[in-house]
């Protein structure tokens, strides 16, 4: 049996998360995203937290791997606040 190709959902399903409901650690301003043509976040977020829906960029914090890539590529400042999750929340790597 060859090792299966995994969808983003399946990949994230391998991980252990403790989502901080109601306290997103990244805030995105959709009005600013509407003015952003390049939308690099959609391509480079390894967790696909940024997705195009009806031509608009939608963001969902769940599944965030805390890499910081969106922070460094977002030149249009749609990412208005980026911090690490509160202690004990977010991803826990066990064997990476």
């Amino acid at each position, binding site marked *: 049996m060859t090792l299966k190709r995994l969808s983003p959902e399946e990949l994230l399903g391998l991980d252990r998360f403790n989502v901080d409901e109601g306290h997103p650690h990244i805030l995105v301003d959709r009005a600013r995203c509407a003015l952003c043509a*390049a939308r690099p976040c959609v391509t480079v977020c390894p967790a696909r937290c940024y997705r195009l829906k009806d031509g608009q960029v939608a963001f969902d914090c769940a599944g965030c791997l805390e890499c910081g890539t969106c922070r460094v590529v977002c030149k249009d400042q749609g990412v208005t606040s980026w911090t690490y999750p509160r202690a004990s929340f977010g991803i826990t790597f066990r064997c990476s």
Partner: protein
Amino acid sequence: MSDDSFDVIVVGAGPAGSACAFALAREGRSVLLLERGDSAGAKNLSGGRLYTYALELLEPGMYLRAPLQRRIVREQVMLVEGRRATTLDVADPAWGEGVPRSHSVVRASLDEWFAAEAEGAGAVFAAGMRVDGLLEENGRIVGIRAGEDEMRAGVVVAADGVNSLLGQQAGLFPDVAARAVGVGVKETIELPDAVIDDRFGVTAGEGVARVAIGCTEGVSGGGFLYTNRGSLSLGIVFNPEQAAAHGRPIQEIFQDFKEQPAIAALLEGGTSVEYGAHLVPEIGHHGVPARLHREGMLVIGDAAQFGINTGLVIRGMDLAIVSGLAAARAILQEGAPTGPAYMAQLEELALLPTLRAYAEFHGIFGISRIFKEYPALANQALGFLFQVDGRVPPPMLKELLAIVRKNVSFRQLAADAWKGYRSL
């Protein structure tokens, strides 16, 4: 010393922070080591090879206690073109004997062990503590703030990794630039040790490190495959700006890599158990901020953007450890101002000189064709040379030149050769 005051507070229990805390605590300094993850390593990820000289520098023989995975005795470079691959395999069973050279590692266990070593030396280790800000008095950093808590120290060491929010808050450097980092994605795949030994041609305890070029659809970056005990680490690092311009989601390209036949054959029967991503400092010396200290504060490890990537050799953890030691030595020096003493130690421990030696190397990655056309050329040329079909072969030289021309023009070839020469 009151209860809430330490000689040193180290923020971040990666290899940089734990090395620093260890070196300070063993000399009797009071040290608080803070980590936002529930355990050290819970938030961390690397490709997974540690150049062990760094542990030896910290304490001779320390590597014998460390949870190292496999001693790397085979180095492989893989040039990928679609389903084809050409792999160069360099093996020497003596590598890593005696003075250790490099081992594969798993961060969850390495970092946990390392923080426990610091604790064993006398440091206070607190996991599950996110540092939110710095305390400043009269232009001097005097401590940290974590939630409601404030803690004071003579020196705060920022070991908070590539996205150093603390260094930025201290005004030492701006946000990390996209061109200065790579984004790495990685899957950990469980496979029995006996299968790994057989498949990779090693005996128990020995391991293989493979890098791959040509698996990024032309985006600057490369793949890696490392053997651990009972698992494999597979991943790709991408330049985020180029990846964005390319437009295909990076985890899609990564999944294609998993299906590349020469990789898939090595993974067969394995079980994916974890997926992660992390940034990595990519441009070496030119990425290091001009200021790594201010009164009461030092910046070490990835936070200082200490990294080397030659495409073949990827180093960050060893430099993190060495810089942690440099900071500790500077803090232990009586009388001298800590910042300049730290910079002097980075010279003495050969960290900055090494970064300077590789300073222009990153220019090689400016040759975009390395990531697509040249791996294709190698595969096509070798594919042609190995081809036997019973017919009279076309004239060798003519055919080989045609293959070269199909991939690059002679002008590009000359320009790339010059650029490569200038970078070395």
